[in-house]
């Protein structure tokens, strides 16, 4: 625990952004190089998170605690556990790829690169923050860079998409802000420290519960809303297709690869542990919404003509699986959920890169503009097929492990949702393969497509690491699951115990109340008497 690795991960990108911003405007190439080097350096610094992570340990690791504003109960506390460590590394890995994928950007390169690097710090910060307010700061700090990335370097309707993204997110987040402060006072802990708050909100013995049932519901709702917008859970997903379609390639990669995970991660890290009883109460609703997301997202995919929109809706479906796996409190399902978050980052990131490759050549993403690409770009076709299969969840690729674990785990606990969700797998195969078929196979239907060049060195550099990971996770999932499993087991044990405990407590309170007023029949109307 010697070197402050996590703080370094937060500082290096911002420092790089400052450096990039100070370069003269003419030096676009240098700005790209500086950004690439910063992103690579960040990735290198993050490697010890993988090598020095102790897989058997369920607790927070690499923890750093410093006073921030003691008078307000704010601490700078960061750490990673099995839930977040893979996500942090995913972020640092995707960032150099994004910079490389943006090499063709010519407009305002400096600002573009600076926005990406600031975004990286904010994303890593959100994953590692162990103080609620610190988390909120990073969470909101992501907004402006992402707004600019979509709105400045995006497609034709970029302003609309950027505003929609921003407003959806901020409307979702501000109730959470109120809830965070409310918890500070009502929990009695007078701190924003996550672990302390969790303990205070879920007292072990017979101490009174600090929140009333309705207050806990409101708070859970506020947290869940913020995260549900980000995931996005149906029916709050409408910003996502717009944002994805309009964002530049690298923006889509980071949006799908990391930003959406903020939502699922937030549910897992904050909404559920802070209010386990309420989460259990709302679990049926969340499960239903997740399953609707899976099926609805998949059906929407079948109807899309724009490749990016198709992949965007497939994200809704895939993240529906993640949410499903979280609310059944089964170890397998939750491990699958966490792995699926990483998998989705890899596969969907790669898919967006593939779309970007075509878009750079043809400036269109419509399925009907392609066909027979396999003949002119054989290597590209091979890559796209691999990525497609991974997204479908073919055994041997990463996607299989995640979805399979989620469905397996869910089926053990709740049969019906698992059955409905598995239709998503079938539909997923249909729409992804259909997309690949329409793009790659058949005759070359458009003359312009006859002379497209195959993958170039830079494009290989962006895709190859992801391809390696697709197979690595697919073939040796245990290397990854080992790091996740202890945390997951511990997490679920705690949550289940807390749910049971809270239910018993509430029941006891109700019985007590009924005994205290024996003369009056407890009805809905006269609880005030």
């Amino acid at each position, binding site marked *: 625990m010697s070197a402050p690795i996590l703080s370094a991960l937060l500082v290096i990108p911002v420092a790089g952004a400052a450096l990039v911003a100070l370069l003269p405007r003419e030096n676009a190439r240098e700005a790209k190089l500086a950004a690439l080097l910063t992103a690579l350096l960040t990735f290198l610094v993050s490697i010890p998170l993988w090598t020095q992570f102790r897989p058997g340990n369920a607790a927070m690791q690499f923890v750093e605690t410093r006073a921030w504003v003691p008078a307000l109960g704010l601490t700078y506390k960061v750490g990673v556990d099995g839930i977040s460590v893979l996500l942090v590394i995913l972020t640092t890995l995707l960032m150099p790829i994004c910079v490389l994928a943006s090499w063709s950007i010519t407009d305002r390169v400096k600002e573009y690169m600076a926005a990406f690097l600031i975004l990286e710090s904010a994303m890593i910060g959100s994953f590692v923050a162990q103080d609620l307010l610190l988390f909120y*700061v990073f969470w909101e700090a992501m907004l402006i860079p992402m707004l*600019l990335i979509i*709105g*400045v370097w995006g497609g034709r309707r970029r302003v609309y998409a*950027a505003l929609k993204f921003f407003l959806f997110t901020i409307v979702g987040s501000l109730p959470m802000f*109120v809830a965070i402060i409310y918890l500070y006072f009502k929990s009695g802990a007078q701190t924003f420290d996550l672990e302390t708050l969790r303990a205070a909100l879920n007292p072990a013995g017979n101490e009174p519960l600090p929140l009333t049932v309705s207050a806990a519901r409101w708070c859970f709702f506020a947290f869940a809303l913020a995260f549900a917008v980000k995931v996005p859970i149906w029916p709050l997903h409408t910003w996502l297709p717009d944002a994805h379609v309009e964002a530049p390639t690298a923006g889509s990669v980071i949006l799908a690869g990391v930003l959406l995970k903020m939502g699922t991660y937030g549910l897992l890290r904050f909404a559920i542990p802070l209010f386990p009883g309420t989460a259990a109460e709302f679990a049926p609703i969340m499960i239903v919404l997740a399953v609707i997301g899976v099926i609805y997202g998949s059906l929407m995919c079948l109807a899309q003509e724009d490749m990016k929109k198709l992949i965007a809706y497939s994200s809704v479906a895939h993240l529906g699986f993640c949410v499903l796996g979280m609310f059944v409190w089964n170890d397998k399902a939750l491990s699958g959920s966490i792995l699926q978050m990483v998998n989705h980052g890899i596969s969907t990131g790669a898919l967006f890169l593939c779309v970007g490759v075509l878009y750079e050549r043809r400036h269109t993403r419509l399925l009907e503009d392609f066909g027979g690409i396999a003949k002119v770009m054989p290597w590209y076709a091979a890559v796209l097929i691999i990525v497609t299969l991974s997204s479908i969840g073919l055994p041997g690729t990463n996607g299989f492990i995640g979805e399979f674990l989620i469905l397996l785990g869910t089926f053990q606990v709740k049969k019906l949702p698992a059955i409905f969700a598995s239709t998503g797998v079938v539909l997923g195969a249909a729409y992804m393969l259909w997309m690949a078929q329409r793009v790659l196979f058949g005759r070359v239907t458009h003359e312009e497509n006859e002379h497209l060049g195959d993958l170039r060195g830079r494009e290989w550099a962006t895709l190859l690491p992801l391809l390696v990971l697709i197979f690595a996770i697919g073939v040796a999932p245990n290397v990854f699951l080992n790091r996740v499993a202890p945390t997951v087991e511990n997490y679920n044990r705690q949550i289940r115990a807390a749910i049971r405990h809270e239910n018993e407590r509430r029941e006891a309170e109700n019985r007590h109340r009924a005994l205290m007023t024996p003369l009056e029949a407890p009805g809905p109307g006269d609880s005030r008497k």
Partner: protein
Amino acid sequence: MTLGAHDLQLFSPVLILLGTAAVAVTADLYSGKIERGALPFISLGGTVAAAISLLSLWGRNEEAFGGALRIDGLAVVMGLAACAATALSVLMSASYVRSSGIDFGEYYGLMLTAAAGAVMLAQANDLMSVFLGIEIMSIAVYCLTGITRDREKSTEAAMKYFIMGAFSTGFLLFGIALLYGAVVTTGGTEGILQSPSQSSLLRLDALARVPANTPLLAAGLALFLVGAAFKVGAVPFHAWTPDAYEGAPAPVTGFMAGVVKAGVFAALLRSATVAFPHLGLEWGGALAFLAAATMVVGNVCALAQTNLKRLLAYSSIGHTGVILVGIVVASETEHAAAAVLFYVIAYVVMTAGSFGLISLLAREGGELEDISQFSGLASRRPAAAAAMTLFMASLAGIPPTAGFMGKFLIFREAIQNREFLWLAITGIAASVVSAYYYLKIVVAMYMRDPAKGEEFPKGEDRWGAVLGLGLASIATIALGICPAKVLEWCNAAIQSVR
């Protein structure tokens, strides 16, 4: 009452500002010999000197002029905020006034006089000095608003501002008269026998001895609050704000937004703690309602604005609402008053910055006012657009900025109290609304193409505005990331009043 060296020493910040104002005005008379370009330096020097003398008074907690003024932490912190607003505005003004032909000594003289009024207002310990401070400050600001005589809008704004302001001063004065009556006719005179001076009858702590149910006290307090509400632009006394903000030259707008708020809120806080400790009990509900209305009206009206200065005027009404929330809550919770101080400081910095940007981009023909005129700024002047984005994020309360920390501090206190939870939720909802219109500016700067033939003036010869914007940007981020020190000062300042 004798005038001693002690009094003068405590009064020195105001004296320095007034003296510099006199120097600036007279220096201009010899402008044949002295270059007018020296005026901003003179003014800056005076402001910095006043700030230093304020700093030297930190921790003194003494009264001057027989208790008419009290130099304590509150006076120092809010005085410094006023000086900061002044210094930033002088920096932003330097090139602006030269290009618009108003770079005469009176401009700086009036600015420094207004600052002197605000500093004095922050020290005011009896109602007479409150009145004097407000008047010194206001009259100078009226003149500044109309200083571009040949611009119709400016003259109109000054006229409106003056008439409305004069009315509000009337309310204020009448309120003070009633309060005086309340002190004289009830038990407030007890202590007077020991120190029989006129001033002590109007002392703020004398008012605290008046029984809370005295009708005169209630009437006087109501009028007093109306007068103060006018000055800070609280609903329903906000109608002058958009016109005055739009008509005044941009650096003046930034100046008056910050300085007037620093002065008046300091006086309000002091009278709320010292003179009307029962304010929350008697008036809490009404004030809370006004605060909520101010936040909602300000932010909702801002949505419809296309003129940036009018938009920022309505946004300032919204911010006044947030500060009022702090004042309402301050009667109940301990740290809310410190939160108000922090918010005022944050507001001064970010407002000075956003109006500074308008000043920076002003040309000889006038200012860029319509939001659409800022289209494409980011591709021509990336640093300016980045700074403006920062200020907009801060005004909208997006971390890690001063504005976020300020909102966090104030709403934190409101949420703590169950009865004010609704106020916090209203405020947060209003913030969501505000995010949209601040965003419009960012969208225009970054995502729209510049209008044909639109050229943004170069920044090279505008070192003052560039420096001012840089300082404001740094302060905005610093207050957002490491607020601990400033917050400590604010807390100490409030402690020293009690």
